[in-house]
């Protein structure tokens, strides 16, 4: 099993298999990352099995019990309709986590190859691709969403795709910048001279160096995606009330900040936990995958 050779500031991935098992091993050594992974898994499972974890129906109102703070009966308090917030947070997780992760991953899936290719080829390809990105960035998202809802109706898939669409330029520009700066270095030129395919060059030589900032952007954007999801829902795309969803729970709590802080606090803190966990896991992943980092 060959050791990967770090040279200068660029890395060559020579043997995938060896690196793979080594990475898992290193990840497990990272206590913080493991804890975060456990936390994330717990949150995910709680959402999936929400019905078993709480006696309350997330849609059931209870007028006498409305706007009560955290207590034994209601660990996270109740909202304006007397609904139990904890059960809404747990049930809402299903939708919010899907929105958060799926939209960002879709965005990355599209944006990263675009950026890599754009920066690598440069010239017209780069120009056109980046100008299309400019158009997407300049476009008023709200107008597009209202229009989409009218033409295509609303559904979760559309919601995820819509959010993904707006994050694509971020991934594209990020990856392209790095791609631009790396395409002239010796390793790439060498690989080209021996006839390595573009895909091979991009994946083995350029992508690993873009990995670190990509992980950072991805882990941080999850909260943005969830909150954007809520705004889009209010325009008719995605989830309608009374289905619980973290983003819309946050919005419901907006006017009650002073006298019922728990309405927005608990969904908010859950989103924070997810993002934090994702960040630490991301760090761990990068540390494990990236041989440049000294152990």
């Amino acid at each position, binding site marked *: 099993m060959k050791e990967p050779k770090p040279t200068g500031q660029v890395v060559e991935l020579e043997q995938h298999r060896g690196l793979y098992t080594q990475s898992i091993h290193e990840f497990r050594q990272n206590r913080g990352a493991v804890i975060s992974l456990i936390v994330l898994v717990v949150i995910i499972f709680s959402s999936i099995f929400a019905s078993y974890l709480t006696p309350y129906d997330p*849609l059931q*109102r209870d*007028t006498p019990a*409305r706007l009560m703070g955290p207590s034994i009966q209601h660990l996270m308090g109740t909202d*304006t*309709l*007397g609904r139990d917030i904890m059960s809404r947070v747990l049930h809402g997780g299903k939708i919010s986590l899907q929105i958060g992760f799926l939209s960002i991953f879709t965005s990355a899936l599209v944006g990263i190859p675009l950026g890599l290719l754009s920066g690598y080829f440069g010239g017209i390809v780069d120009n056109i691709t980046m100008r299309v990105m400019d158009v997407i960035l300049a476009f008023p998202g709200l107008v597009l969403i*209202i229009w989409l*809802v*009218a033409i295509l109706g*609303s559904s979760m898939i559309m919601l995820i795709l819509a959010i993904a669409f707006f994050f694509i330029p971020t991934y594209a520009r990020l990856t392209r910048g790095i791609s631009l700066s790396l395409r002239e270095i010796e390793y790439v030129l060498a690989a080209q001279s021996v006839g390595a395919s573009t895909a091979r060059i991009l994946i083995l030589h350029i992508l690993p160096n873009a990995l670190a900032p990509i992980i950072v952007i991805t882990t941080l954007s999850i909260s943005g995606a969830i909150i954007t999801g809520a705004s889009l*829902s*209010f*325009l*008719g795309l995605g989830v*309608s*009330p*009374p289905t619980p969803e973290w983003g819309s729970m946050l*919005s*419901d709590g*907006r*006017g*009650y*900040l*002073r*006298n*019922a802080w728990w309405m927005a606090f608990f969904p908010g803190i859950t989103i924070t936990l997810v993002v934090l966990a994702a960040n630490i896991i991301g760090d761990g992943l990068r540390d494990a995958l990236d041989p440049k980092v000294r152990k």
Partner: protein
Amino acid sequence: MSQTKKLLTFLLVIMLLAMSMNVFAQDDIMAGKGGRLVVADADSDTSLDPFVTSWHSWPHYAIYPTLFSQAEDLTYVGYLADTWEVAESGDALSVTLIDYATFTDGTPVNAEAIKWNLERQADPEVGSPGGADLVGLLTEVEVIDEYSFNIKLERPFAPLIFLLSGIEIVSPTAYEAMGPDEFGLNPVGAGPFIFKELNTNNYVLFERNPDFTWAPEEIYDHPGPVFLDELQVLFLGEEQTILAALETGELSVAGIPAQNLADATANPDIDVESQMMNQIRYVGFNTSKAPWDNAELRKAFSYATDRVELVTLAWEDQAVPLYQPLPPTIWGHNPDIDADAPHYDPDQAMAILDELGYVDADGDGMRDNPDGTPWEVPFTVGSDDEWRRQGEVLVAQWSDIGIPVQIELMDFGSMLELTTTGTHDIFLSLYGYSDPLILTYFFDPDRKGGSNRAWYSTDELTELLLAADSDMNQETRYETITQISEYLIDQSPWVFLLVPNTLTGVRAELENWKIHPADGGLLYWNSYFEVDS
């Protein structure tokens, strides 16, 4: 000096003394009073041209006078009008104006000026939303002498005085000199304030009109000029920010969100008053689309709605349940008819649904169509907080008896458009008005695809509405309106929900203000802050 001269001198001296005493008296009243009233109203961020905007708020009332004004007992008193008489036939009105009102550009507010304003409002090519009612109704404005004129109408129109109380009078000279586009940016009126500065999207600023002395005396002890030095309207929309700004004194007056009432009341710097608004909230059915053409089905929804719970959950008890088309704050409301209107009765609702065939055929807990197919009830709700809150409560209540409601959130513009197509099902909406005339707009056969969002009209109803609008006798008009209300309760094209309260918070430093019982607005023309003279 000759006798005459002495006499003249004496008279002159008396006159001068009298004038100076007047001035002193004026100064006395104004002494120690002034300040800038700062209010927040996002809706005021609109054109100041009364021929353009359909929404009239603080800025318009500050700079433009009207012929009449609504007094606290809901009757109408003269503002620019001094005396007036409605012809018995109901299709003519003769008016004599006060003779001392002037626009801020110096021109007199005379009969010609009123004629110009009314004719322009009634001109279909101008397309003034505020003058919509006058189009086709106003036949002629006949000037008799400098300060009197006759208005002639196409047909008898009972709410004429009310209508005229909403027509803002601008200076024709200024409007013609500047043209419509510029006038909105430099408006000239004859109201208690003069336009000073406009920053669209930010604020609009007015200063006291020193010549203004014609405030309606039934409403204001001191007819003018106002005591305040300036009025500033900030275009703020964020509820919680507005509350905070009121607490720090950045705002003098603000609406208090219902859930923060306790905080505001406990605050020694703020005085809070609650007042029922002249608005209602309702659920509308698209009666042109099956199954909403069935009045019994519509009534089932009315029985299924617990308005008392709705008021608690969505309005923090700051609203009053409503069982008829008009709220208590609009003349024509008849408290006696509430008793027979559908109240919350889930058993009755379920019985009706069962009888109509809407039973649970597939065992999923929700009712299905009489033919067995799944029943879908799309409920169009606006995207703002207030709508969502109400929508969620209604969905919960209706689901309790098995109605499979699905909320479809939509932004306001899309919702308006949808209701004009006639493809919608049920929707949540509101209206705010001061006269039963509003019902004509909502149930007019010619306004389907417009303001008749329920697409509902019958010959019988149209006849009643027309009769009410042209009945000059208050008593019989009231009776006709009662009939209309009962008809609408029985046919249920709407489920009437509630009448909200407006909670107004005013800084303790502001003296001498009142809340108008008819529309919940602030009467501030005699208000002031104490200042050092």
